[in-house]
């Protein structure tokens, strides 16, 4: 199937992306780093002065930070979907995205994992959240959805890391072979001395399959658990059974959108057009369309349920969402997530990369707003009308959000120069 020249070509092409960075790249790194450091500085200030620097208040105790958390966890999802679920289903177009998608998962999770810490009033006591034997003889409350979160997110992080690393091992060995000197040594150590003998491959394939099998339920469960942070509560607008599938679909929608956002420029800049054909991108776009339909359906169900229930609190909540102070955000969210993606029914648009790129950006905006609307409007209008109140993000929150994007892109930029962005081994196999 393969011959030397094509194998060599794959290696060369993929590793070409890891060549000396251009000035433009360095500028991007610098800018992303700067934004990230700005966010960190704001966080330090928040720790020093108190949560008051954020816009959150009473009754809206959760705001942009939790929105960001849910958003980034959502972004993480499609990485696992592409790498694990599609692996199990043997979807061929997976190869074009899986490495980038997995990296995106890990970076998004790293960023997401920061937000629960950022939103803690006393972050210096964050270790209270982990169950470990301590002199206080006190454990954590396993009945709290936040502890489920701790478990879900850390499990997800560890499993994704292992999965990512295992997928990388043969490629690291390839890089080690092609890179001379000290750098090569590091790659070699990272590759654990992989030589690709039959013994290694035999267990490797099994392992990869098992990891994929383990990771697959995570795609559904992690965001379900995140959704239970809300659904298990009593707050009108949160307390609903459709949240888990709704959130999972939303997560995949935002995740695929982010994959498109990242892959289209990466494909162009790193000249990987051969390896990421348009037809594969079209497949991803179809996933986007599907999940957008699910999300749109959930929007309708949610509103319908509230008014069908006749529950005063729910009705007021959903009236407020659509017509209240945050109505603009609500309608942007509906348009971006449920209406605009419908254009992907047109095949020509699915194959139009520029269109897809812009659409994916809009879906990202829409999905961020979706989380914002869910988190904020529900809290702003709950049971006791005396305690109603609105929320406006402060500059600190906006800055930290920007910083989180800075961190994500910083990590992704570093990734494309340090690790092979496509799975060379799998490309060869193909």
């Amino acid at each position: 199937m393969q011959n030397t020249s094509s194998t060599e070509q794959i290696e060369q092409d993929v590793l070409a992306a890891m060549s000396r960075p251009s000035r433009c790249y360095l500028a991007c790194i610098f800018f992303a780093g700067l934004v990230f450091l700005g966010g960190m500085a704001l966080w330090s200030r928040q720790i020093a002065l108190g949560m008051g620097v954020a816009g959150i208040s009473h009754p809206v105790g959760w705001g942009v930070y939790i929105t960001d958390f849910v958003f980034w966890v959502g972004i993480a999802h499609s990485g696992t979907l592409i790498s694990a679920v599609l692996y199990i289903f043997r979807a061929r177009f997976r190869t074009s995205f899986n490495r980038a998608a997995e990296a995106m998962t890990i970076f998004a999770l790293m960023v997401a994992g920061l937000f629960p810490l950022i939103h803690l009033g006393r972050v210096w006591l964050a270790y209270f959240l982990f169950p470990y034997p301590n002199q206080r003889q006190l454990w954590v409350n396993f009945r709290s959805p936040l502890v489920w979160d701790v478990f879900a997110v850390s499990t997800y992080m560890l499993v994704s890391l292992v999965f990512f690393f295992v997928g990388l091992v043969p490629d690291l060995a390839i890089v080690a072979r092609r890179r001379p000197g000290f750098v090569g040594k590091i790659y070699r150590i990272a590759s654990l001395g992989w030589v690709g003998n039959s013994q290694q491959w035999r267990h490797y394939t099994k392992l990869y399959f098992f990891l994929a099998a383990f990771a697959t339920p995570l795609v559904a469960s992690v965001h379900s658990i995140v959704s239970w942070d809300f659904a298990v509560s009593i707050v009108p607008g949160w307390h609903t059974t459709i949240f888990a599938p709704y959130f999972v679909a939303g997560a995949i929608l935002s995740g695929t959108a982010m994959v498109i956002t990242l892959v289209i420029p990466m494909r162009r800049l790193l000249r990987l057009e051969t390896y990421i054909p348009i037809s594969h991108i079209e497949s991803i776009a179809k996933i986007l369309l599907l999940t957008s339909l699910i999300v749109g359906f959930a929007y309708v169900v949610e509103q319908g349920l509230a008014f069908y229930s006749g529950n005063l609190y729910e009705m007021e909540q959903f009236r407020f969402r659509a017509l209240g102070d945050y109505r603009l955000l609500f309608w942007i969210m509906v348009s971006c997530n449920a209406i605009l993606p419908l254009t992907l029914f047109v095949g020509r648009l699915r194959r139009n990369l520029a269109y897809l790129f812009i659409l994916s950006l809009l879906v990202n905006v829409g999905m961020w707003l979706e989380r914002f609307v869910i988190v904020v409007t529900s809290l702003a209008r709950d049971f006791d009308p005396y305690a109603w109140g609105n929320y406006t993000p402060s500059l600190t929150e906006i800055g930290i959000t920007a910083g989180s994007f800075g961190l994500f892109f910083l990590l992704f930029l570093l990734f494309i120069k340090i690790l092979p962005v496509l799975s060379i081994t799998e490309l060869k196999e193909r």
Partner: protein
Amino acid sequence: MDRRQFLQMLGLVSGAAALSSCGSEKGQKELVSLLVPAEDGIVPGTETWQPSTCCECPAHCGLLTRVRENRPVKLEGNPRHPVNRGGLCLRGQAALWRLYHPQRLQTPLKRQADGRLQAITWAQALTEITEALQLSRQQGRKNTWLAGRTSGTLSTLIEELCDSLDIERLAEFEPFSHAALRQSYRLLLDQADLPRYRVEQADLLITIGADLLETFLSPVDYTAQASTLAADQKRHWMHLEPHYSLTGANADDRLVLTPGSEGALLLWLLHSLASQSRYQSRWSQTLQDLLPSTDLAATAGATGLKPQQLQELVSRLMQAKKPLLIVGGIATGHRNGQPVALFGALLQRLIALPWAGLDFSAAENYSRVGSLLDLKDLNQQLAADRIGVLFVSRCNPVRHSPTDLGLKAALAKATLRVGLADLADDTTDQMDLILPLAHGLETWGDTEPRRGIVGLLQPIASPRQQALSEGDLLLKLLQQATGKSPAADWAGYLQQNWQKRFSRAQLGQLMEDGYLFEPQPQPSIRLDQARAAKALRNLQLQAPLTLPAAVIAPSIRSFDGRSRSLELLSEIPDPLTTISYGSWMAVAPQTADRLRLRDGNELQIKTADWQSTQPVRIQPGLATEILALPMDSLPAPVTGIDPLTGEALRYVEGLQLNPTGKLHRLPILAGSPSQHGRGLIPKPVQRKKKNDLQHHGPRASFYPEPEYENYRWTMAIDLQRCVGCSACVASCYIENNVPVVGASDHLAGREMSWLRIEPFYDKHGRVDFLPMLCQHCNYAPCEAVCPVYAAYHNPEGLNVQVYNRCVGTRYCSNNCPYKVRRFNWWQHKRTPPLDQLRNPDVPVRSKGMMEKCTFCLQRIRIAKDRAKDDKRLVQDGEVTTACAQSCPAGAIVFGNLLDKESKIYRLTHSQRAYRVLAELGTEPGVHYLRPE
């Protein structure tokens, strides 16, 4: 002089140890060996209770002061005190804030030529005063002493000082002088004082303008009395006023009448009564004939009331066995004030005196209080350069006189102006010398707010820096000026006087209880027909005020404005508008619609010679043509002087309304004024549906039933009694070290109150108050979501927040349907010495922690400790929360639900009992008794 020494000198205690106690400031770092034991029987780390008297307003309620580590940390109403009977209003609670106020005057200050103040010593100040006294005597000028309402031994001493130094003692100045009322009682009934109205015995109460709950004479007393009235279905309370006061909000019926038409209404009532045989005999025909004529239509026209309303009023009056009428407050604050007061007194004579509804035996001691006419007189003398040294003590005439009187300018003409005050105000700003006065909790003293009641003041804290009690100051002045003084110090002077006046047993009682009560004989009161006839003949009933008109209404939070400098009282929102900081103008919803105004839009109201610009707050239920300005939001809350009575005028009529287009951010704490049909306070209509509130029947649950062994702490709040006075809120703030965060955090929605009063208006503008605090639910939604067990349910039914375990996820607050959890957004620090106002039994929370109502866990702990010593359980009534204790209306009851004999058990099983948002299945531990 400390308590032990003082008692020793009175011969009430034997023993010779001199005390030099010294609390441990750094408590946590050091253990202190005192030189000698602290007072007998005081165990370190425990509390003592010292009786005292509140001086925050002229009512002088009795106090019990909780003392820890030699510092007063909490004030409570003295349950046995005849004035307040255990309750204490929010201003009384905040008296401690005054004690620890960072801006308290600490040294004598002298104004320099450039207007700045410079600290001087007492010796310098006294020399300066004596020299000035002498000088003005030489110049033939008159030295004068102007003070706020003064009673007891201090009054005697002032008299003595004025006599020996030839100072003229002016009539006392009180912003709420009730001059018109006193004039009418003097004219008709020959009484100089104001009676105590026996509201609790009336079966019909008609109040016209008198704000019983806010500032009228003795608010705590009347709140307690009025709440019994409100709680009783068979008795009725009608309130008539042009604007919307808290008193009006709590009356069974609130009738809106045109300002200035109260006289017309009373006149019509008198006419209606004249025809009744029951009342005919009580006054002479001559008097009846002297009344100006009127009829139903004219009265309805003048008052703006519907004829049916007027007829209902009369028929209720006819049917009542013990009707009581109270006029006063702003009903006399306009040009028709005199007829209102006179007709009112006449009517009271007819309907209430026969059943002793007016109790002159417990008269409010106002005999020395003057009116604005006296101030006008002083003003003229000042202008004529006839005043030498002017002392102004404990009052603020500059603020409370009309601007066109020009008192500020006239003051400059006195040779020396000496102000005695604890905090700077508009008047001290005009003074040459400012002498710092000690707080009521820093000095010995006595008060006599009502005939027959003597209240005790005793030093529980040591005076701030160089502040002196007024008594000590006067004695020093006497010493300086004459070379001799009647006593070495104020405490000695007091003792001389007390020993003359009281028996040993009485003194013992005074020291023990904090008050003496000797019921006085009821004076015989009869209507002086001749004087009454003369008064009626001279009477001129003028037309009501031209609308739109503005009412300058007194505020429950700052009385006449004197408590405005206490930040705590700005932190607690006004109960009707829920605005905390800043000033505003209440506008009717229709007016706001017409002018396209929303909350916070600025509105200018003006007449030819008066104008005010304030942000608007839409007040449901307010009459269309009326604007209400809280008294403390205006620089000069008096618009003129009634020449007939000397009463302050508190109306502006014929206003022009000009929206300025500016928008202010008002800290309005209520998210919505309406319940949105949620039944938080069930309405009578909802009640008629069978068992509407228990519509879910017995609870089906997957969860185990909660089990309690000895206690299930529970609270019941009777909404029928609750008047929304917010005393509980203030009490909670002080008891639990709740941070006072200021306007900016209020605007951001970050108030920290553990207990709040929620006003909910219906579509007719009627309001109900719902005190909202942690409900201590059996199935608390907040607990299960806390990842670290910081919120949990304890075996006694308390929903406990372990502050130091909290990591600050705020999930509990989000998940609380009652939204009663408070997050510390900052490290809240109090300006010294306010940091000493701290209950050591309650930790100060640091930034990033969630906090909330604990049902006063610290008090339960103390009670349980006591019970454990006796090897028994805590008994009913042994422990109560700070809010329940302070409630003047007795609306809050706290106790152990497992005790089937307890009051709380009875209340929670009452027909009226319900729980807020019961349908959520949280099973709160706070039960409300719905209004009927």
